[in-house]
């Protein structure tokens, strides 16, 4: 019997002909990504040997620029580590700053057909690049950096066959909310996206979908490769890569069909995204204190363009805070050049520098007691963005921007009328 994409990549990286669900695969890691948080003194240790410095990337993202002395100390440790071992790919505070998953996409550090590990849970983001990428813990990162290897329990795979195209004003976030609402958690399972519908999706849209796979508790989340991806990677990363399709007779736990043309904008209610999506009409009118667009999943240039389009010539509601955080400084600069930042600021939004920031409740948008936020970010757990009594709704950037204008949860349909898909 054949293998899924994830199984084929793990087998290749493990130097074996086949892996199957239930196996523990020990594999060579092509890319290991450390973060500012990796260098917290509670978890980091003095490293004596690095397996291959050219396979290590360091990206400071959770608390940048440093809002605390300890955050500053973490980065100081990270810089010294990079210097000691000659790690060239260091994304420090500055022009190359950004959220790790978005930097990895900007630079095409994620190589199709290879394995990538990163100390942040949303690492399956890089699955949009046909890369077997998984978020791991701090100790896993020490293991990967020092040995060049990682282990994975191989799970079963759910295959999603996407067909058709999204209607105007509907985004990849809504695909996610549809899948999360209908099928819920994918614990110990891999997700594979393919089908004719993927070709009409930008890499940014694909990355929104893979990134959010973390919220389904999936192991690996991966897209089939296509020409769009291959050309993008070739133009940015000279290293060899291996676009990987599933075998014709790959064994899936289940195959599920999703017609993108039927997707509606949805909102996830607070505390979890699993089986918690509702239509906008069910929550429209609920007052919000803050609207947020950002994080690794929704701070892309496409997302900023949508937000700017919705607020163009309008004003954020009095008493509502609208915070927009581009995923990387490269995106931030592109958004300035495209005029999106001006448009957002004219409407009354705050556009911050690139960081995990408000999404992780770190800084630049933390919620106070009993506040209500609608967010296009990764996670809406109780207490995620600040005080545990705050309530976090999750939706697409278009819905969040429309809600910022209304001061309450609102759909964005009116801003896309007349568009063709």
């Amino acid at each position, binding site marked *: 019997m054949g293998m899924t994409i994830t199984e084929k990549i793990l087998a290749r990286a493990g130097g074996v002909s086949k892996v199957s669900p239930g196996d523990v695969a020990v594999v060579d890691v092509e890319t290991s990504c450390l973060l500012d948080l990796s260098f917290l003194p509670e978890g980091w240790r*003095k490293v*004596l040997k690095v397996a291959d410095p050219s396979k290590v990337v360091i990206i400071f993202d959770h608390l940048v620029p440093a809002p605390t002395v300890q*955050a500053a100390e973490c980065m100081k440790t990270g810089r010294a580590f990079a210097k000691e071992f000659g790690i060239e790919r260091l994304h420090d505070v500055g022009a190359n700053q950004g959220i790790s998953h978005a930097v990895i996409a900007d630079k095409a550090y994620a190589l199709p057909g290879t394995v990538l590990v990163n100390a942040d849970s949303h690492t399956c983001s890089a699955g949009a690049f046909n890369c077997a990428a*998984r978020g791991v813990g701090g*100790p896993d990162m020490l293991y990967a950096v*020092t040995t060049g290897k990682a282990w994975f329990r191989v799970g079963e795979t759910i295959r999603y066959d996407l067909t058709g195209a999204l209607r105007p004003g509907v985004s990849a976030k809504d695909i996610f909310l549809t899948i999360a609402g209908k099928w819920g*958690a994918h614990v*110990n399972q891999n997700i594979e996206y393919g089908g004719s519908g993927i070709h009409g999706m930008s890499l940014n849209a694909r990355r929104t979908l893979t990134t959010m796979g973390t919220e389904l508790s999936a192991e690996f989340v991966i897209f089939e490769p296509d020409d769009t991806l291959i050309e993008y990677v070739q133009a940015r990363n000279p290293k060899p890569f291996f676009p990987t399709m599933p075998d014709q007779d790959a064994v899936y736990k289940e195959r599920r069909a999703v017609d993108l043309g039927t997707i509606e904008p949805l909102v996830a209610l607070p505390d979890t995204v699993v089986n918690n999506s509702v239509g906008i009409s069910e929550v429209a009118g609920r007052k919000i204190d803050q609207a947020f667009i950002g994080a690794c999943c929704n701070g892309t240039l496409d997302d900023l363009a949508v937000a700017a389009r919705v607020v163009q010539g309008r004003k954020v509601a009095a008493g509502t805070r609208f915070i927009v955080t581009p995923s990387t400084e490269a995106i931030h600069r592109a958004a300035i050049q495209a005029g999106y930042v001006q448009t957002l600021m004219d409407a009354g939004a705050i556009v911050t520098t690139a960081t995990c920031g408000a999404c992780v409740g770190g800084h630049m948008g933390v919620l106070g007691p009993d506040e209500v936020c609608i967010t296009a970010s990764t996670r809406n757990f109780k207490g995620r963005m600040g005080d*545990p009594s705050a309530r976090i709704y999750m939706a697409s950037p278009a819905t969040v921007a429309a809600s910022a204008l209304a001061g309450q949860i609102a759909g964005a349909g009116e801003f896309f009328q007349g568009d063709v898909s």
Partner: protein
Amino acid sequence: MRNGRVWKFGDNINTDLMLPGPYLYRSSEQQARAVFMNNRPGWVDQVQTGDAIVGGFNYGMGSSRPAARSIRNCGVGFLLAETINGLFFRNAVNYGLLACECPGVSGAFEEGDTAELDIEAWTARNPRTRQTLKVSQVPQQLLEMMLGGGVYPVLERDGLIAPRVGEP
């Protein structure tokens, strides 16, 4: 055989409940004092060394933060759940927290029961009801790390990281 007094938790217990965001940058001692502060305040004063957590589906969903270290540092002897989130499981292996999947476990134990875990026979027994459940076997190489204090001792032994006084 390991015996532990049972503390019951539901489905989808997430990492942010075990290790709230504001404590990410604190010491591991302070983090261990913050476990479940938002959903079960005071629990850290009640749990005793060797106690067991019995959880529902997708125990440990969420982030890569070292929530398993906090649970271990609270003195929890072992954790059984219907299913365990893959990332939390990795951290359990790496920080030396014995954590196993045990289908049916949440219906088989009440709070305060004793759970008897046998990781040779791979069973969990409730002596009150005399019910015995099958526990999903943890692969041998991972079990060795779980029981051996996690991955840090392995990396120290192999000369890859420097030893440090105190716990990781």
